[in-house]
């Protein structure tokens, strides 16, 4: 079903059609181009993913409030966009995330605790990208879209597109937000991907706010329409509809794997929380807007469908809640147990091969610290 979205005030352009397969009320609807067959097991699995990633996110926000994390970038409201797209990935596909893709990380089997290292300040990104085919979080807005495109160009050179072998053909997905579409790097990524016909899906979560700046400050046209100018397809999907996101992303990934080139997917969603824990959205947006989007919650609609069609009952929902609490407890206790890195470890890995200056500074640092040890001990005795 194509849902026309009413245009906003202030001369905003009329809102474009939206691919939707599950309404906010939990009603399954059909779309002429995209369809999805979900078994009860699959639908329950989506629900479980959505609830768990929201719970991890809430726990991380709480940990930040309690001083255990320096910062957290909440995904609240964007669970369906992330889970729906990430569950469409094949194991060999490769993901280039922003710093908010905790739900995608979950689907790539990255332990949520590992995500916290960056925000706690004990490392700059603790997981092994090659183990999960999930790159490190990129903080500079939009940079990773070029990395994704280059990676996809490598996939082409490896002959890992268009072979017809589902275990070999590989797609790359680049996540980014609405603000990023203004970046030169993102536009350059579109150009490079287009002229190379690279197997990359540009997955834009349009949560409508780039910190304090609404879409109107980034664009005069719906974002997905940008793709046409670069020469590849773009479309807008209801980013709070996990089924539609899944169907649309799967089609885009399949297209890339067949060697037919890039696709721009605009997942139209809403950032329910602040940009990060350092942000105060009450300074720039009205509560009524948030309340309106609460009615489009990505989890509530799946739960409604499961309940109404008898694919899950109270027992299942309760089980998922228990699992979510257990996961949150794991995240909390593992976060608190995360040791601070040894100071001298800051000298590791700036280079792979020896670098005399770094070696010299490391030696100085060690000697300098060693010089303090007796004095520090004496200080303790005095106290």
């Amino acid at each position, binding site marked *: 079903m194509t849902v026309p979205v009413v245009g906003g005030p202030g001369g905003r352009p009329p809102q474009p059609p939206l691919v939707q397969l599950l309404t906010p009320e939990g009603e399954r609807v059909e779309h002429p181009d995209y369809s999805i067959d979900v078994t009860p097991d699959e639908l329950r699995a989506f629900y479980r993913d959505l609830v768990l990633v929201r719970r991890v996110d809430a726990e991380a926000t709480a940990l930040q409030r309690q001083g255990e994390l320096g910062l957290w970038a909440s995904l609240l409201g964007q669970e369906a966009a992330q889970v729906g797209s990430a569950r469409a990935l094949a194991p060999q596909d490769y993901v280039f995330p922003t710093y908010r893709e905790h739900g995608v990380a979950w689907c790539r089997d990255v332990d949520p605790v590992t995500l916290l290292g960056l925000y706690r300040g004990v490392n700059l990104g603790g997981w092994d990208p*090659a183990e999960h085919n999930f790159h490190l979080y*990129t903080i500079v807005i939009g*940079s990773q879209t070029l990395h994704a*495109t280059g990676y996809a160009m490598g996939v082409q*050179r490896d002959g890992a597109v268009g072979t017809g072998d589902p275990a070999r053909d590989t797609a790359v997905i680049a996540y980014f937000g609405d603000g990023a579409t203004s970046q*030169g790097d993102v536009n*350059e990524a579109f150009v490079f991907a287009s002229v190379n016909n690279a197997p990359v899906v540009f997955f834009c979560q349009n949560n409508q706010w780039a910190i304090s700046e609404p879409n109107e400050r980034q664009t005069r046209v719906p974002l997905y329409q940008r793709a046409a100018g670069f020469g590849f397809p773009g479309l807008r999907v209801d980013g709070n509809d996990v089924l539609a996101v899944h169907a649309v992303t799967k089609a885009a990934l399949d297209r890339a794997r067949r060697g037919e080139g890039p696709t721009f997917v605009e997942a139209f969603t809403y950032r329910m929380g602040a940009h990060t824990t350092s942000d105060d959205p009450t300074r720039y947006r009205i509560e009524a807007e948030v309340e309106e989007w609460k009615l489009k919650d990505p989890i509530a609609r799946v739960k409604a469908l499961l309940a109404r069609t008898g694919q899950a009952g109270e027992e299942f929902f309760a089980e998922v809640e228990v699992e979510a609490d257990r996961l949150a407890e794991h995240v909390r206790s593992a976060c608190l147990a995360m040791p601070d890195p040894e100071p001298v470890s800051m000298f590791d890995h700036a280079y792979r091969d020896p*670098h005399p200056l770094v070696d010299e500074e490391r030696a100085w640092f060690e000697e300098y610290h060693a010089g303090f040890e007796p004095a520090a001990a004496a200080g303790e005795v005095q106290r």
Partner: protein
Amino acid sequence: MSPRTTTIAKAVNEGLRRAMEDDPKVLVMGEDVGRLGGVFRVTDGLQKDFGEDRVIDTPLAESGIIGTAIGLALRGYRPVCEIQFDGFIYPAYDQIVSQLAKMGYRSGGKLSLPVVVRVPYGGGIGAVEHHSESPEAYFAHTAGLRVVTCSNPADAYFMTQQAIRSDDPVMVFEPKRRYWDKGELDPAAEPLPLHAARVARPGTDVTVAAYGPMVRTVLEAATAAGAEGRSLEVVDLRSLSPLDLDTLVASVERTRRLVVVHEAPTFLGLGAEIAARVTERCFYHLEAPVLRVGGFHLPYPASRLEEEYLPDLDRVLDAVDRALAF
């Protein structure tokens, strides 16, 4: 291959060719590097021999070149990017400094970024604005990058290959006005390590350190000084990050005087860092303060003025005189 006389541009070309033959993962990418062979013809013939997948004519977007090279490296390739002119590197500055330099560190050593960025640099070719700059200090200042520069065909040939073999990102600054300078190349010779400096001309009175395009200028100054009975020791630094201070310090301990020469402005340039470090290590050996000869604190001027702007033989000798007068 037998020893022969060749140019720096051809030696880089041969170095690239050799690296591509040795390792199928090596790619060359940049603006006009394919069909045209590069605006300086440094990549001439490579696309014909290695194909469009390995010698990539990229869109005209420098950030895109480096950003996609990073992605290719993450997929296991060893891209060699050409930035067409020094002054065009700034659109790629963010990808180089924030991504290329830091990504290995960010990953705790799990990722390696064997990307080479080749940059024809420096002035003296009568070019229009943005085609004559010496931006090397920006990159030497950035941890995570290695920065080297060649001054002769043999170094051009070997350093190109060594940079490509490095698992760290390497910026290779090529002295564009010396591209057509000739010199001996023996491909069978044993090269210096990539990050070693070299005493290009032994001497006893003053050490003059230079790199890239200024090495020839300084060698010519040393010849002129020699005619006046002054013996200059010329050190070709070759590597700007890391610096081979040991070779330089050993020279200064012999000559007790140091002049550092580069085209880049002296303020916060390599010469400033070298002066500080050599002074720390050689304080009691020095008979004179370390002097610098370089560009003025100006945007690169119009080309009719560049001969006045760029350090030349006389400005080098002027600094040598001042060092000796102390």
